[in-house]
């Protein structure tokens, strides 16, 4: 790829995570420009398809930088979190528009975005993930919430983690220690999505493992250990600088560190992902790795986990992203 290649970072969108995405997009833009790349930042809106061909921006929102000089983009990096950015829809559009993009294709994104489907696939690949139940609001309405919730507690035990089956940034997530708290957790969860994933809460060392593939196969970067000061890695703990303590690499023994790295690469492969992903997991005290979820558009904000892992691996964030963009452009 020549030095005159032009890249586009997509951020914003209309999901609940727009604000996080805008922060990711700006950081990615800065990192790529620091590495000398020619790159624009743009919202994903009605003007996107025209912009991909290099037409000047004309819609509201449009470019977040002064892009659009008439030349088409060579590759796109999707920094959209949630909604169309992660559910495969945007990737599908990029594919039919013939625009190369970093990361997984639409089918793999759809699978990873739907946490229950992703959990089923990693289980099939021989990996562990906490036992769970997936239920839409209609199931509670039709079968009686009280009876279903009672049965759910009996089946999974306490404590529980309630989260939207699709979503990110811990939005709509609650931990539940007492049965009385479960209805409120369900209501909060259903505010963010149609189906709830109720998972047995496992305890241990919370880690995030970034998986990158720059052409020689997927490999795990050093795991980042997450210790939120409030005890819960919720939205505030994720996006308030100083609210969480990180250990990079995680304070795991060699066997556990190898196990979580191996599980992350295996999950990345099992879900058919490409280029980069972030796998969230709990390493239990006995060394068992419990996979929680896999992200195809991981956060890249100032407090996000992926850039920390890249730094700990001794890599340049901007250089790595540029390599992935060059790789995507070459892939066509």
């Amino acid at each position, binding site marked *: 790829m020549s030095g005159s290649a032009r890249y586009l970072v997509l951020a914003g969108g209309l999901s*609940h995570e727009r604000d996080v995405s805008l922060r990711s997009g700006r950081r990615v833009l800065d990192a790529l420009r620091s590495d000398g790349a020619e790159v624009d930042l743009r919202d994903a809106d009605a003007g996107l398809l025209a912009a991909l061909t290099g037409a000047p921006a004309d819609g509201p929102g449009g470019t977040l930088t002064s892009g659009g000089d008439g030349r088409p983009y060579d590759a796109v990096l999707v920094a959209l979190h949630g909604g169309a950015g992660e559910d495969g829809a945007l990737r599908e559009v990029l594919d039919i528009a013939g625009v190369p993009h970093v990361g997984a294709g639409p089918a793999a994104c759809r699978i990873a975005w739907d946490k229950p489907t992703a959990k089923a696939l990693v289980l099939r690949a021989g990996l562990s993930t906490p036992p769970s139940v997936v239920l839409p609001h209609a199931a509670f309405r039709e079968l009686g919430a009280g009876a279903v919730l009672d049965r759910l507690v009996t089946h999974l035990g306490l404590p529980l983690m309630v989260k939207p089956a699709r979503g990110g940034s811990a939005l709509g997530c609650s931990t539940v220690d007492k049965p009385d708290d479960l209805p*409120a957790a369900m209501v909060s969860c259903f505010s963010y999505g149609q189906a709830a994933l109720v998972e047995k809460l496992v305890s241990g060392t919370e880690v995030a493992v970034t998986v990158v593939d720059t052409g020689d196969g997927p490999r795990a970067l050093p795991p980042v250990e997450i210790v939120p000061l409030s005890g819960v890695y919720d939205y505030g703990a994720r996006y308030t600088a100083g609210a969480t303590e990180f250990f990079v690499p995680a304070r795991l023994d060699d066997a556990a560190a190898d196990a979580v790295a191996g599980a992350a690469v295996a999950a990345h492969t099992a879900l058919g992902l490409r280029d980069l992903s972030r796998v969230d997991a709990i390493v239990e005290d006995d060394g068992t790795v419990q996979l929680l979820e896999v992200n195809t558009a991981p956060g890249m904000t100032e407090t996000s986990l992926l850039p920390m892992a890249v730094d700990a691996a001794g890599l340049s964030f901007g250089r790595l992203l540029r390599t992935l963009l060059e790789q995507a452009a070459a892939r066509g």
Partner: protein
Amino acid sequence: MPPRPTSGVRLDAFTDRYAQRTHAMTASEIRALFAVASRPEVVSLAGGMPNLSALPLDAVGKLMGELVQTRGAQALQYGSGQGDPHLRELICEVMALEGIEASSEDVVVTVGSQQALDLVTRVFVDPGDVVLAEAPSYVGALSTFSAYQAEVVHVAMDEQGLVPEALRETLAAVQAAGKRAKFLYTVPNFHNPAGTTLVEQRRDEVLAICQRAGLMVLEDNPYGLLGFDGPPTPAIRARGGQDDVLYLGSFSKTFAPGLRVGWVLAPHAVREKLVLAAEAAVLCPPTFNQLAVAEYLSTQDWQGQVRAFTAMYRERRDALLDALRQQMPAGASWTHPTGGFYVWVTLPSGLDAKVLLPRAVTARVAFVPGTAFFADGTGNAHLRLSYCYPEPDRIREGVRRLATVLQEEVELRNTFGQTRARTSAPQASSPAPDLA
């Protein structure tokens, strides 16, 4: 793999050095949702941005250009900490429209009335002091009181504004607790967020109660000239309160909020301290902006412009009230403002405005949860709708979307029953000022 660390990183080297009051400043998922509200696809009934589409920008541009050409050396220079004398005289003429007689010597020009709030709180409030405020109250004031570590005690309101009996009871309770209230903060006209106006007969009573208790009144009146039905009600300051009332005014709603020009009218002794506090904060309010406002008031039909604004807001208020009447589910109620920007909605029993917001954003409509307007984390049963910015058709569409969301939430509550509301800090539940 690099060696394992023995200590973690916090991504903020200053965590153990922040002031106590800073610790509550955390990222908020509710506030983050307002980033979506600013997109054109979303009908935002959340923000309080005045609609400037009716402003004669050609005339304003000409006026500002001439200001630089003819008086640039003055307009671009430092000015008095108290504010431009000519503008202060014009401010007295503006206040006279609401029955206030004042000397320009007692006016301090501020960077929006928000800075006046800051200065008054800085001058009067020590950490732990009690400030009385309506329930609900303006979120920007609550943020200021929080920054100075005041304890906010809310006083009940009804459709006629602050309830005098509730004020008496609250004052007695504060005194019985051995605490001292420093002032009553009130927005008597077209209240933000309640949309109500303190009726005339209650104004004397509220002032008398405060005078008897030795309590100062902080009268915040940014919307007073934006009434839809006749002339403005005389201000509390106009009712014999010159020694007991600090009066805050603003050009943000009658002219342009981007200029950030407001003021405080204060008794002489207080005024002197406010000037010193203002100089410590900003040296002087922006000279260019002050001269531009003065020029606008002197050369343009600004009152005619305010009538044009209010005609526009009245049409939007009507659209909102009509749509609410036609579409809201049973159990919802709301106020009927006669001016200003806001309608305050009380949700059907059991619904939580903060929990509703993500669902509303998914449906492409936004509001501000009532929790933004209470210092004590309550307010979940309410939401604020603004009609100032969207066109009437968009307002109707927004209410249609909101009604669907409420209906879905009612069904959810029917499924899961009553659940406990979570509390949150006020500023965490409100949008930034530029997110309409």
